[in-house]
């Protein structure tokens, strides 16, 4: 894992003291809320529905146990004993006091964490594949590249006031586990025929009000030009992005309005101009960063077989573990989606347990998934039973990865001041309904995603089944969408028709799953069946 050098630490420490002074001045009345708001947002502090909310950055979702313990301590000391893992691999606390916010940032800085770049019109915390460094199918660990871009983007003076927020994801396999093409810039580290590594750039994707899939604008940027090319992409956007209209200010609108070809031409022109300007850090810096992401000392010859005599354990292994590049190991997913629970929430105790288990069984590493679960990336198969037993006792052993119970849900109207409708109760009711009817297993992979408003933090456009909460004359109403995917087979979901009320939407989800069960052919997932038969059979079942 990356460790701060003295520059990183000095920057973060200085930012804590700067914010401490800003907060003091606000409390003393020397700053108005209008003056203070942009300053607090630069430090991840929002004013939300019930209190201040602090969003803490978890760069590319990677944590060690010391950091997870610090997050648990913050939940207990400054909040109400829990935190919420988000779809951008971050964590949010919902009940923060302004008078304590600087102390929290100071506690975070002690474990090399901060809340910078979690708000505002800057390059946000960079996300990545949660199985990075463990996945059998990656051409390289994508995190050193994400870290390089983190260092480039942090406090970048030119990109601190972009037309709008800017999200970058970096992956390094053909399987997309980071919704890469639904980011402002998606970067895939690829290998060419000569065996050299480079970066494919996908620019102008996003969800929100106007969802778009990013087109590929360059399929191979040499790695010693990665930062320069990123800078060129940002420069064109910073210059021509629509600052006159908040709803048209994201880069996806610029790329769409110019056309991918013209945008690319402008980027290439800017890139040519930048090439001899000394933007690119020396490759030695990338090598220095890479050294922090060396493989841990995997044990050779550790057993491949798993004792599957306990059926509950066997089910969890089948559902929640994924193949690892190293023989005898798997990556294990800790579900934060108990039936009827709040997706992504974890108590301080649960965070501590996950931290301790990471230390005991996963070389001290954890990952936050954009699907609001947590990964222990390097677990010996021989340790799985002990791991599962500990998780199960703490209510963290739900065997439901990628099933209809593994729902992404944004905080919605229960916590979010921008929301139109609640998301969490819908997720709770759906997981309860399917657990009750026992249909979860038979439905197989089915990704259901819920957002409480058009901003799409719950990725509803990318759900095999998506749900969008809307406000219909002050009453919560839910639109149903079908056919989205955030993976390598990326697609945007389509609305089925008129929306449903709180109970109706749960019935509607059951109805569309019944159509799938009736229509599916061998081995088809819900998404495959939808793509084959189209929307009409689902519409007929829903609306008659």
């Amino acid at each position: 894992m990356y460790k701060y050098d003295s520059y990183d630490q000095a920057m973060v420490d200085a930012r804590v003291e700067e914010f401490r002074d800003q907060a003091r001045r606000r409390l003393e009345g020397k700053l108005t809320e209008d003056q203070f708001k942009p300053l607090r947002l630069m430090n991840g502090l929002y004013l939300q529905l019930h209190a201040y909310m602090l969003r803490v950055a978890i760069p590319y979702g990677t944590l060690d146990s010391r950091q997870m313990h610090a997050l648990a301590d913050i939940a207990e000391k400054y909040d109400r004993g829990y935190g919420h893992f988000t779809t951008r691999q971050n964590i949010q606390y919902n009940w923060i006091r302004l008078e304590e916010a600087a102390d929290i940032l100071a506690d975070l800085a002690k474990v090399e964490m901060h809340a910078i770049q979690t708000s505002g019109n800057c390059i946000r915390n960079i996300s990545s594949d949660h199985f990075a460094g463990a996945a059998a199918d990656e051409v390289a660990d994508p995190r050193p590249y994400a870290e390089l871009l983190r260092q480039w983007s942090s406090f970048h003076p030119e990109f601190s006031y972009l037309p709008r927020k800017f999200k970058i994801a970096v992956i390094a396999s053909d399987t997309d586990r980071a919704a890469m093409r639904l980011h402002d810039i998606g970067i895939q580290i690829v290998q060419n025929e000569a065996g050299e590594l480079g970066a494919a750039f996908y620019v102008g994707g996003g969800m929100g009000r106007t969802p778009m899939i990013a087109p590929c604008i360059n399929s191979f940027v040499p790695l010693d030009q990665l930062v320069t090319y990123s800078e060129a992409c940002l420069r064109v956007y910073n210059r021509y992005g629509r600052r006159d209209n908040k709803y048209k200010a994201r880069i996806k609108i610029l790329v769409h309005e110019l056309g991918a070809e013209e945008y690319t031409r402008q980027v290439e022109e800017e890139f040519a101009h930048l090439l001899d300007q000394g933007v690119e850090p020396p490759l030695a810096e990338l090598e220095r960063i890479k050294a922090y992401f060396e493989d841990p000392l995997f044990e050779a010859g550790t057993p491949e077989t798993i004792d599957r005599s306990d059926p509950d354990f066997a089910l969890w292994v089948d559902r929640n573990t994924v193949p690892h590049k190293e023989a005898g190991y798997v990556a294990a997913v800790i579900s934060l989606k108990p039936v009827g629970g709040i997706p992504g929430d974890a108590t301080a105790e649960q965070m501590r347990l996950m931290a301790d288990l990471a230390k005991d069984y996963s070389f001290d590493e954890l990952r936050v998934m954009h699907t609001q679960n947590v990964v222990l990336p390097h677990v010996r198969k021989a340790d799985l039973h002990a791991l599962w037993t500990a998780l199960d006792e703490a209510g963290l052993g739900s065997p439901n990865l990628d099933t209809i119970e593994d729902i992404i849900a944004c905080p919605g109207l229960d916590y979010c001041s921008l929301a139109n409708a609640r998301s969490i109760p819908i997720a709770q009711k759906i997981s309860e309904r399917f657990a009750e009817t026992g249909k979860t297993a038979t439905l197989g992979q089915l990704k259901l995603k819920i957002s409480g408003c058009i901003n799409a933090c719950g990725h509803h456009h990318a759900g095999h089944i998506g749900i969008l909460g809307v406000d219909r004359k002050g009453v919560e109403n839910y639109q149903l969408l079908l056919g989205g995917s955030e993976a390598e087979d990326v697609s945007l979901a389509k609305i089925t028709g008129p929306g449903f009320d709180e109970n109706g939407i749960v019935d509607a989800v059951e109805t569309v799953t019944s159509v799938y069960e009736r229509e599916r052919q061998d081995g088809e997932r819900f998404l495959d069946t939808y793509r084959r038969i189209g929307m009409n059979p689902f519409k007929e079942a829903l609306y008659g």
Partner: protein
Amino acid sequence: MRLLTGNDLKTGAVTWWTGSDWSIHVEDAADVTGGEDEIARREEAARRVNSPYAVDAEMHEGSPRPSHIKERVRALGPTVRPDLTLKPADPDIGNWVI
């Protein structure tokens, strides 16, 4: 009726104008119809509230109930965590919100 609401500057807690002070309980809220702008200006300047604004409400079983669900969720707390609401002991409190 109109209620004036905002957040406590230090703690961020949701507060309601009672006619003479701020309370975290919406049932203490006073009708501010016509006077909301002036009270908001004065109280914000004195840092007794952060970002105040007025909302519509009706009387319901003897106390004010905001007209919009968002304000009712603000008033009470998250519907999915009754233990963290202002009335954790009342099993029916969710009905007040919905």
